[in-house]
């Protein structure tokens, strides 16, 4: 398809190589996009679990998960609504650490992520392993705001940000794909921003 007559776009020099196609830099803003009412979660009763096709189903309390070896992510996040936020820092625990405790079975290939709300999202297990995913509770050195998913959210920054479920409650490992909230509603099962996998069929 050709260009749009009269459209030049934002004045731009070299496009920041950190921006995937079709994305723009939101700068200091961090837009809030959620489909549900923002919950207030009590860390006294909060929990996170890894279940399904694992050797040892595991559940952590708030204090227990925070006692695990910590990990941080320094990099960028990309929302399917076309904003990206560059150079952010999150702190929490690597999903690898959580999975190692539970011991995925060889048949585990997919994950359905659940939340303390009714939100869900699905990913291939391989997208959550190898230092590519975290459960995080700090953003730029401060506790994660509840509107951004606090007390803790999933962080899968190499996928569009709807995969990084707010108010995350657990991972269920499966041998088949079960679609989550936005995936049922037309959004992509993988969601790779560099391939612009926004909707099914992309």
């Amino acid at each position, binding site marked *: *398809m*050709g*260009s*749009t*007559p*009269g*459209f*030049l*776009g*934002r004045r*731009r020099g070299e*496009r920041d190589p950190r921006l995937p*196609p*079709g994305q*723009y830099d*939101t700068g200091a*803003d961090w*837009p*809030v*996009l*959620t*489909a*549900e*009412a*923002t*919950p207030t979660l009590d860390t006294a009763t909060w929990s996170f679990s890894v279940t399904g096709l694992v050797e040892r189903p595991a559940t952590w309390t708030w204090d227990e998960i925070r006692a695990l070896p910590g990990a941080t992510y320094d990099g960028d996040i990309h929302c399917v*609504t*076309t*904003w990206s936020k560059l150079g952010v820092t999150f702190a929490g625990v690597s999903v690898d650490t959580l999975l190692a405790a539970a011991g995925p079975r060889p048949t585990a290939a997919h994950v359905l992520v*659940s*939340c*303390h*709300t*009714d*939100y*869900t999202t699905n990913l291939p297990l391989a997208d959550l392993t190898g230092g590519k995913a975290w459960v995080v509770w700090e953003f730029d050195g401060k506790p994660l705001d509840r*509107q951004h998913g606090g007390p803790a959210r999933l962080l899968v920054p190499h996928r569009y940000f709807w995969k990084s479920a707010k108010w995350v*409650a657990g991972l269920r490992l499966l041998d088949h794909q079960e679609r*989550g*909230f*936005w995936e*049922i*509603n*037309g*959004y*992509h099962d993988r969601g790779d921003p560099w391939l612009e996998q926004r*909707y*099914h*069929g*992309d």
Partner: protein
Amino acid sequence: MTDPTAGPSRAAAAPGPGPWQRATVTEVRQEAPGAKTFRLALPAPVAHLPGQHYVVRLTAPDGYTAQRSYSVASAPPPDPAADPTIELTVERLADGEVSSYLHDVVAPGAELEVRGPIGGWFVWRGDTPAVLVGGGSGVVPLMAMLRHARRIGRPDLVRLVVSVRTPPDLYYAGELAGPETTVVHTRVAPPGSARPPGHLTVDDLPELADGAVAYVCGSSGFADAATSLLVARGVPTDRIRVERFGATG
């Protein structure tokens, strides 16, 4: 813990949107200061659900693209083949590279690349009572729901509450009025208004019928406030669907 059988994951499946298509702008209307409605004729029309949106993509000569999502304001036509049009209402944002192009450049006859309809959650299919709460331009997808309710002869199913700063800020002012709608003014009320200007309160919200679903659309601050009021009104959180707009332009 949540009940795994309740809530969002039970929403009916919606297919992905169709491919990009080149729509023709057939009409442009000033809806309010800073807001225009664009009527688009689609070469490959698909019946949308009230609440769904389209993506508009602009391409610069060097291949740079910018795309933004805009809610459909029109009701689904009874027969998309006979009426292959949609209406998108777009607020002009000061630094919005897409909205400023649409406002400043696009006129009837222009072609726009669009893709949709998108969304299967913030939709109302006309089969439940619904309370619609919109702030400012958040009224747009709710207007599609109101128009649909009226078109199918069931305006009794919906109650729409719109919050705007001043009377001129109200979109669809001529069409919106009716026994099923309430307009709340936060800064300036119209002359003779019984309600003094002020933020939305729990008293501005209607009683919810049994089985009603609440749809909230607006800025993040508005959505949080309106959701809290609905909860205070006794609406269970799993009956509240929220669409927020952040920094889109």
